[in-house]
């Protein structure tokens, strides 16, 4: 073999060296492999001097391959590839052995740890010999961006990108943008009015020259790849000609049909059959709900058409399919509220004065069904109120995760309820979690105000009294874990801080865009810490609650972050893709078509004339499934070739490196 290999074994301070005999591993590698020209151990390979060590050896000794035995490649593979590149060696002539995460940190016995490290290094050396020189793949980027979801995260992202000069297509399922934030009254911890801060942004969206706003629309299909997505959007028939409609809303006013509004008013109030969801809606153009419209159901009425001054009502309107080409996509599809009926002992749906957080938001909202008055079902004012935290959150029967906003939201409820009604408020909590700026101060403020806190997850809520004091009340029964006793608190109103849940269709939506959702249903980010708005699919980003429960500041931050990532891609003009791709040797492909159906990214196509299959390099994501499936061995995968893996297996299983007894 003509290769000259440099092997570098990292101490990682004492992280590795405290368990693995790093000097021995380095000595052994040099002794065993004639191709190993130099083998060193060093305190911190990832440090500048560590990297220089590699660079100098490449230059001075003419190394053709480099192996570093250190931490996980997920941490420093890029670092060392960079070192190789700086010294003029193709970065893919490098291989890493993870002897920290996979050996030093998980193995008790030092001798065995050293043997295992040698085995991993052995595999890496034999693999790297078979490495090939590779170049990243370059793809052009279309400057337009698709944003799905017009809640605050999507709005923020759209404005950032549009302001930077690129075009945005913002798609919203509902008749208006605004999302959940448009339903809220006040926002924590500053208690500023939700509508006051959101409405201007919504207005900007509606009037921005760089934004195409498509409400009452849904994405139907997504093809292509980063830089070059082809999108089909179904624009549902509004039965209102938008160009003619002036938003005077006479139609809404005159429409005789009232329908319970399950979306914006969460079932607490009615709307008309032709409606805009709320006064500040953007666009301020109504939608005709054909399922409830008297004309569509019985053929009689047509009041809206008669009263419309501009003749904008069109009962014949059909869904439209619009096509766009975009370079990047941001998904900001938000969350659903947990259905509190699923916890029978809380009586939601059965006891009229047990309400959810969103219902309370409407109740306290000046534009809500009671004009902002907090009233019981029978119109009385509540004198005592219970706020129940963690309803459907932190509970493995429903959702294991913490919904993250409920503590602050519940504190806000306590404040608003007290302020508006003077009622005594009890907050039932497991733990109070207020980790952001000014949040703990808000908690203190609520404590100061005299809200009572009981530490204990509510056991049950009933209307069955055991004492005279409980008559006519709702009784919240909980174990006060601090006092060590079970308590029954009679109250008039119970607010359930229900969990945030992934959208019921998040998995299907994820599939549509080629991204995955975790076990809970939240869309998975590329890296939970270092890459929270990117996804595993290049060019598809996520923001806001689609990625996990979060509050408004965090949603806005993510919207802006995702926008920054997109703008940066647009500015680069091109995208570099990891050259881990499959390719088909046409001469050896006999067109058996085994592979044709295996690629979820539709990267494999069949040429009917040549009768061979081929891989579209830009679509291929490099999973290697087709490589493993090709019966003729005609498909090969770069950087994970049969030869590389098989030689790694031989090294890793070398009988000389059996565990000692």
């Amino acid at each position, binding site marked *: 073999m003509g290769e000259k290999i440099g092997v570098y074994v990292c101490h990682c301070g004492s992280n590795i060296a405290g368990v693995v005999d790093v000097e021995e591993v380095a000595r052994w590698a040099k002794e065993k492999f004639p191709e190993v020209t130099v083998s060193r151990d060093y305190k911190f390979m990832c440090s500048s001097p560590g990297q220089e060590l590699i660079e100098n050896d490449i230059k001075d000794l003419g190394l053709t391959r480099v192996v570093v035995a250190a931490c996980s490649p997920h941490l420093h593979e890029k670092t060392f590839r960079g070192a190789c590149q700086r010294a003029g060696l193709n970065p893919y002539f490098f291989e890493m052995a993870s002897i920290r995460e996979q050996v030093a940190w998980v193995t008790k016995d030092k001798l065995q740890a050293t043997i295992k490290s040698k085995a991993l290094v052995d595999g890496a050396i034999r693999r790297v010999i078979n490495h090939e020189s590779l170049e990243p793949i370059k793809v052009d980027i279309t400057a337009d961006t698709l944003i799905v979801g017009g809640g605050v995260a999507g709005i923020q992202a759209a404005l950032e990108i549009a302001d930077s000069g690129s075009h945005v297509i913002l798609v919203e399922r509902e008749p208006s943008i605004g999302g959940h934030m448009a339903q809220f009254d006040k926002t924590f911890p500053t208690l500023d009015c939700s509508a006051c801060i959101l409405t201007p942004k919504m207005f900007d969206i509606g009037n921005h020259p760089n934004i195409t706003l498509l409400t009452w629309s849904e994405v139907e299909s997504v093809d292509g790849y980063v830089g070059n997505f082809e999108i089909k959007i179904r624009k549902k028939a509004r039965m209102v000609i938008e160009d003619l409609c002036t938003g005077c809303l006479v139609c809404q006013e005159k429409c005789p049909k009232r329908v319970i509004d399950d979306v914006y008013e969460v079932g607490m109030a009615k709307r008309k059959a032709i409606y805009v969801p709320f006064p500040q809606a953007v666009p301020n153009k109504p939608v005709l709900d054909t399922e409830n419209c008297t004309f569509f159901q019985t053929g009689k009425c047509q009041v809206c058409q008669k009263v419309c001054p501009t003749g904008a009502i069109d009962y014949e309107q059909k869904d439209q399919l619009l096509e766009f080409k975009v370079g990047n996509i941001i998904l900001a599809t938000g969350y659903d509220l947990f259905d509190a009926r699923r916890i029978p002992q809380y009586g939601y749906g059965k006891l009229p004065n047990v309400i959810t957080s969103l219902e309370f938001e409407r109740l306290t909202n000046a534009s809500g069904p009671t004009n902002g008055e907090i009233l019981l079902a029978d119109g009385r004012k509540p004198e005592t109120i219970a706020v129940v935290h963690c309803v459907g959150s932190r509970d493995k029967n429903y959702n294991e995760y913490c919904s993250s906003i409920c503590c602050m939201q519940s504190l806000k409820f306590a404040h608003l309820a007290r302020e508006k009604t003077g009622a005594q408020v009890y907050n039932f909590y497991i733990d109070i979690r207020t980790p952001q700026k000014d949040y703990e101060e808000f908690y203190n403020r609520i404590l100061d105000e005299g809200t009572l806190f009981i530490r204990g997850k509510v056991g049950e809520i009933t209307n069955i009294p055991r004492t005279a004091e409980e008559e006519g009340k709702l009784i919240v029964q909980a174990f006060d874990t601090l006092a060590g006793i079970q308590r029954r608190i009679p109250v008039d109103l119970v607010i359930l801080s229900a969990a945030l849940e992934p959208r019921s269709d998040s998995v299907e939506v994820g599939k549509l865009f080629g991204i995955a959702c975790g076990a809970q249903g939240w869309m998975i980010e590329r890296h939970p810490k270092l890459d929270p708005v990117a996804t595993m699919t290049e060019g598809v980003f996520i923001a806001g609650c689609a990625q996990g429960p979060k509050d408004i500041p965090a949603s806005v931050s993510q919207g802006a972050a995702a926008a920054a990532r997109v703008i940066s891609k647009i500015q680069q003009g091109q995208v570099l893709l990891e050259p881990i791709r499959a390719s088909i040797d046409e001469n050896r492909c006999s067109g058996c078509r085994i592979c044709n*159906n295996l690629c979820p990214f539709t990267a494999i196509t069949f040429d009917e004339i040549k009768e061979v299959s081929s891989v579209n390099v830009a679509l291929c994501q490099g999973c290697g499934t087709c490589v493993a499936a090709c019966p003729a061995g005609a498909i090969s995968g770069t950087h994970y070739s049969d030869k590389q893996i098989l030689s790694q297996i031989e090294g890793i299983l070398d009988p000389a490196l059996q565990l000692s007894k």
Partner: protein
Amino acid sequence: MSTNGKPKFSMYWAASCGGCEISVLNIHEKILEVDANFEVVFWPVAMDSKYKDLEAMEDNSILLTLFNGGIRNDENEEIARLLRKKTQIMVAFGSCATEGGIPGLGNLGTMKSIFDTAYFGVSTENPEQIYPKTSFESQFGQLHLPKMYPVLRTLDQVVPVDYFMPGCPPEPHQIGAVIDLVIQVLNGKAELPPKGSVIGAGTSTVCDECKRTRTEKKIKKFMRIQDVERIDPEICLFDQGIPCNGPATSSGCDARCPAVGAQCIGCYGPAGGVIDYGARLMSAFASVIDSNDPDEIESILESIPDPAGQFYRFNLAKSLLRSSKYAWKGE
């Protein structure tokens, strides 16, 4: 060089059915060219020859040996080594020598099970319960039979082989082409391919030569050919649910089996570069099963009752594992 100046040729029949020997005769008048260009010095099935005559020959004095059959016993091995010593160009001829072939399937079981099947199976009439012995006292003295090995090996697992010529048996036109080539080389008109090459086969797979129309593959059930009501003459057998090994099998046979409505069983061996033929087939077959439900997958797989036989019919002895544990453990 031989006395008459012609290069010497030999052919040997080890663990195999003998079809390869017949296929050489099947090249028709081309056999005359063999005779014209070679002196046949050793070919037990065609002429009388003794091992001691072979031993007496000078090393490397035979130009070309076509060795067919796998190495099943110590006689096979002894002759393989002897021929290797005497031969310049050693060709593993046919599936058995190349990859074990049907006798290689014996590697799935123990030697005892092989003998029991052969001597006491339902198709054997053996009222005296005769069982072979390695040595036997006869009226002419002590007689010896070759000793069986527990595992059949391919020729190249025993001696170095220069070229491999797959097929069960190799197609006559392929044999003819190889003979033409050797003659041209002898006349200085061509060069031999690199040592270790597969000769007499194509570079692609059977599908390449198969005329049937193929579509994307999605399999809900595999069916044995006799269970298919009507085989569509135009459409790919695999697409019809018939487990055809064509996609993995080296071309060179003109897709003779699929052409007449029988699935390819893989006698031409793996396509170039494939390490384990059966593993590739398993991977391919499993990949196109049209289900993500574990139980349904399980039940679809039940329609492949004998996966080792399906995927390793000719190739077991050349596979990564080579034999079952029962064979090498003897239990």
